[in-house]
């Protein structure tokens, strides 16, 4: 929490917002002590700004500056109190319902939804008609009209937290409910609570000013809303007395602006991805090019590859070199964070823009680091395709399986729609998926099916290199084995090379011909599979080998047909 606080303070916009708010707070607290009686008529009505009255006078001869300063107190006060109340109600109802579940949750959620569809402003106006005017009425009305939205947010958050392991663990441990809520749930929602408090305060100030402008507030009081009401009532437009409504409107806008800035900053702290870092899609820059293209016969040639992220000293990949021959299955193994996926992504030019790359990358003779724009786009998938680990999220959820083939083929100018569709059916059949599923949506497929679809998709343009980034990790052992068998069979038939990236070294030993071991960005060992299994040279390799049960080789048949 402290670091988040520091992060908020580090944000320039948050600082501006906080300073503005602080200024208004000081104004609201102490300003009224200096400006005198805001209600008193002090001069000729509607006098323009002058040294005597810096912001002029109202239609009643009151000092606009005094009115604006005094108005801040009640307006901001009500805004903050309503913000607090709405958030409080929201938390109590949302967390209570979400945590309790069952009938209570059903009832609460129906009530919330009912309140959500009942429009707030009219409700506020209608309820307001029944209560005597004053700040209390405004508070009640605005709270009633606003709590439902808050409650819904907190309920959803509670539901997702309740499903988390640490809450389940606490429940199993028999901790009392209040303690679970207080210790496990609420602290995890702190930034959401803060965000919703800011949001509801903005709402409360806006709605309050709006109601008062309609004359539905307490006209005896001096607030920003009533100031605007009186300005409009005294025909500010007709008399051209802009000074009666411009300062107040600006104040409302500035407070809202300051709060919005704070909520921006808060949003980005909670969700760092929103931060505005310069980024233009996954593009890679090569910072230097040490050697002229090496004339090897390897399909893939990686030389002295070093990847570093902007702002960090340590490279994630440090001077890694290896080759992959055509038709070879090359494995890269290592723990998460070892840099193995970074290498895969670098080969496909999928690293974010703040990644700095040194070294040489060649695939099928092409200098990958030199490709840009349309040339890069056209190169992709033709020579090198990829299958990601997360089959669940690698397919676009809103278009059908077939469409994802069609757009891929179309992007590379391959045939008509009908032809592309036929090709998709064919490809699906190749990986053992019923061709009728071409019209299915991704969510309708099981994990294994999706991974097969991913494989089929990767083979659509018959690439010479297939990068498999943890392709089977999320699958159960049986499915994993089926897919691997299918993969090895296809590889044998079509002769493409595979870069197989996984943390599961034993699995790798059952499919790969050569294996590289990565640790902290360094390639610590590179050897043919047999040699690596038999006599691992590096202690880390031995450790990796021993940490998983051995599997019998998948590809015994394949090894026999290898020339």
């Amino acid at each position, binding site marked *: 929490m402290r670091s988040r606080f520091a992060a908020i303070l580090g944000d320039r916009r948050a600082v501006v917002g906080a300073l503005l708010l602080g200024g208004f707070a000081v104004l609201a607290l102490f300003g009224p002590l200096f400006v005198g009686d805001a209600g*008193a008529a002090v001069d000729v009505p509607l006098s323009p700004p002058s040294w005597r009255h810096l912001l002029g006078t109202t239609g009643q001869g009151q000092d606009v500056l005094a009115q604006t300063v005094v108005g801040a107190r009640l307006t901001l006060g009500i805004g903050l109190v309503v913000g607090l109340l709405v958030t409080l109600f929201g938390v109590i109802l949302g967390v209570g319902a979400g945590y309790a579940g069952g009938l209570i949750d059903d009832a609460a959620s129906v009530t919330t939804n009912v309140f959500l569809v009942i429009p707030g402003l009219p409700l506020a106006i209608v309820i307001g*008609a029944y209560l*005597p*005017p004053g700040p209390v009425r405004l508070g009640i009305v605005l709270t009633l009209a606003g709590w439902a939205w808050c409650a819904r947010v907190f309920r959803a958050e509670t539901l997702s937290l309740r499903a988390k392991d640490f809450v389940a663990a606490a429940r199993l441990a028999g901790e009392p409910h209040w303690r679970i809520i207080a210790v496990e749930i609420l602290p995890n929602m702190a930034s959401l609570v803060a965000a919703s408090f800011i949001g509801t305060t903005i709402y409360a100030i806006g709605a309050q000013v709006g109601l008062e402008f309609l004359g539905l507030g307490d*006209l005896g009081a001096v607030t920003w809303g009533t100031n605007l009401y009186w300005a*409009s009532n*005294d025909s500010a437009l*007709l008399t051209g007395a802009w000074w009666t409504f411009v300062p107040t409107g600006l104040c409302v806008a500035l407070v809202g602006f300051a709060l919005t800035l704070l909520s921006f900053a808060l949003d980005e702290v909670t969700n760092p991805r929103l931060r505005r870092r310069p980024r233009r899609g996954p593009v890679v820059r090569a910072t230097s090019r040490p050697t002229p293209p090496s004339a090897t016969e390897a399909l893939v040639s990686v030389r002295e590859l070093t990847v570093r992220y902007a702002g960090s000293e340590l490279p994630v990949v440090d001077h890694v070199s290896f080759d992959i021959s055509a038709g070879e299955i090359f494995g890269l193994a290592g723990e998460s964070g070892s840099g193995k996926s970074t290498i895969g992504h670098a080969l496909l030019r999928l690293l974010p823009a703040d990644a700095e790359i040194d070294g040489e990358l060649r695939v099928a003779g092409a200098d990958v680091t030199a490709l840009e724009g349309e040339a890069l786009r056209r190169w992709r998938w033709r020579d090198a395709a990829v299958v990601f680990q997360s089959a669940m999220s690698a397919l676009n959820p809103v278009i059908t399986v077939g469409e994802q083939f069609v757009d891929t083929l179309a992007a590379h100018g391959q045939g008509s729609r009908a032809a592309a569709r036929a090709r998709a059916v064919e490809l699906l059949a190749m990986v053992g998926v019923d061709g009728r599923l071409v019209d299915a949506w991704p969510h309708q497929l099981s994990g294994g099916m999706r991974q097969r679809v991913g494989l089929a998709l990767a083979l659509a343009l018959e690439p010479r290199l297939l990068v498999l980034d943890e392709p089977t990790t999320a699958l159960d052992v049986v499915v994993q084995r089926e897919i691997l068998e299918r993969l090895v069979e296809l590889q044998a038939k079509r002769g493409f090379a595979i870069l197989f990236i996984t943390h599961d070294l034993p699995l790798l030993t059952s499919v790969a011909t050569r294996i590289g071991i990565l640790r902290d960005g360094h390639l610590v060992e590179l050897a043919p599979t047999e040699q690596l299994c038999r006599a691992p040279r590096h202690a880390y390799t031995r450790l990796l080998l021993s940490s998983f049960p051995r599997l019998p080789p998948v590809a015994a048949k394949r090894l026999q047909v290898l020339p």
Partner: protein
Amino acid sequence: MRALGLAAFIAACSAPPPPARDVLSVSVEQASSWVRNFNPLLVGTARWPTRGGIYEPLLIWNAVSGAWVPWLATSYRWSDDHRRLTLTIRDGVRWSDGAPFSAEDVAFTFELLHRHRALDASGLWDFLDGVRAVDAHTVELTLSRPYVPGLVEVAQQVILPAHLWRRVADPVAFTNPNPVGTGPFTEVRVFRNQVWELGRNPRYWQPGKPEIAALRMVAYPSNDQANLALVEGEIDWAGNFVPAIERTFVARDREHHGYWFPALGSTVFLYPNTRRPPLDDVRVRKALSLAIDRQRVVDIGLFGYARPSDGTALSDAYASWRDPAVAASAWVGHDVAAAAALLDEAGWTRGADGVRSRAGRRLAFTVEVVSGWSDWVRAAQVIARDLAQVGVAVEVRAYEWSAWFERLQSGEFELSIACPGLAFSFDAPTPYYAYRWIMSSPAVKPLGELQPTNWNRFGDPRADALLGEFEATDEGPRQKELMRQIEERFAATAPAIPLFVSPLWGAFNTRRFTGFPSAANPYAKLSPHSAPENLLVLMHLQPRAR
């Protein structure tokens, strides 16, 4: 910014056609859209020009000249015992559908009100006993008691066509979409949500009148918009309050723009609830009155347009009734020392916080106002400050109209700002109602029951007797003397605290029409809110020659 460009483009391509030349645009009431309702009997929702445009009364009281103007009736006559009123009905008048108008219609209208008391807003049948058409030109009304002030209620009742309204099953819920009347404007030419037009009645009984082809009502939801339209020349005749009118309106076109704000409106009072101590104490009421600086109230609340009330609380419409001695009496002057002395005398002493108290009770009140009525709200704020100076703590509280009115009627308030009858102006030949509505005992009900008038709940037996005597006479000198005594009672008992006489707002633009009443030519009230007197103005207006 793209949107702005597009908008500017649209703005450039369609300019609206100009309004027809001989159609008079009027701004009377505020609305965002019009709803078709021409039922003239519902006081709450029927307005001019339905009353006093489409439908006409028997006689019109011209408050400016102080005389009855014969209209659908040519004359009236009281019987000697003042229990029978005979009206002679005008000959040669036709309904706009061509049917002849007769005494039958008059009798029918009064009978209709008897059958549907919901429509009898002015309470005619409180004093009427019967009505009958003696012949085609004569109607005779019998009264249950001598009640001379009732003449104005009878005279200004608009008359309906019996041949059509006889067939209306429920006149209370009848919106009368296609009205048939005797008035100068009867043809609904256009009715849209933003604008409607009422065309000339081709069969109007005054030859050659009206000279205007039609009245046009444009919907403006607030004063501000109506004022903008007035300043822009879209409106010819307006009854809005225009702030700083010399600068904002007249200065724009001195030749054509004019206004007249005569002090002919209702008197606005600070109503004390005399059933709630210590407001039952006349010394307290008078002290409140003395503490108020009425000139400041008027200057700040009404931009100086109104006139502070004198001791009789009568508007200029009753100038001839005003007793100079009462008018000049001190109780409505601004005298802080006298106010303090009265409070001291009543036993209210100042505490440490400057607020007076007696036996542990603080002298603190709430003043209730209507939240939309900004002039009164401002007046209340000035009053609150004035009263604080003499040690009376006052809080101004603004309510929505309906809530405020309910509290006023049921006696839940302590102090409230209002004017009798809540009308812009109530025009009667005598100030009888003006006083009856604030100091007549029979009208006073217990707190909590709705009180239609006399919201201060004050009764004075001597005033009752005087008012009773006044009801039974129509001799000028006798009436004057009785009224003088009533005025004295008013000043002595201070049943309510008069603040100022409302001006009647009225502004006009003579670019297209001439003949508006003004301070220079005061033949009738200018304000279009003063139906049925508006009929007099409609007869005078002429389109400018092209």
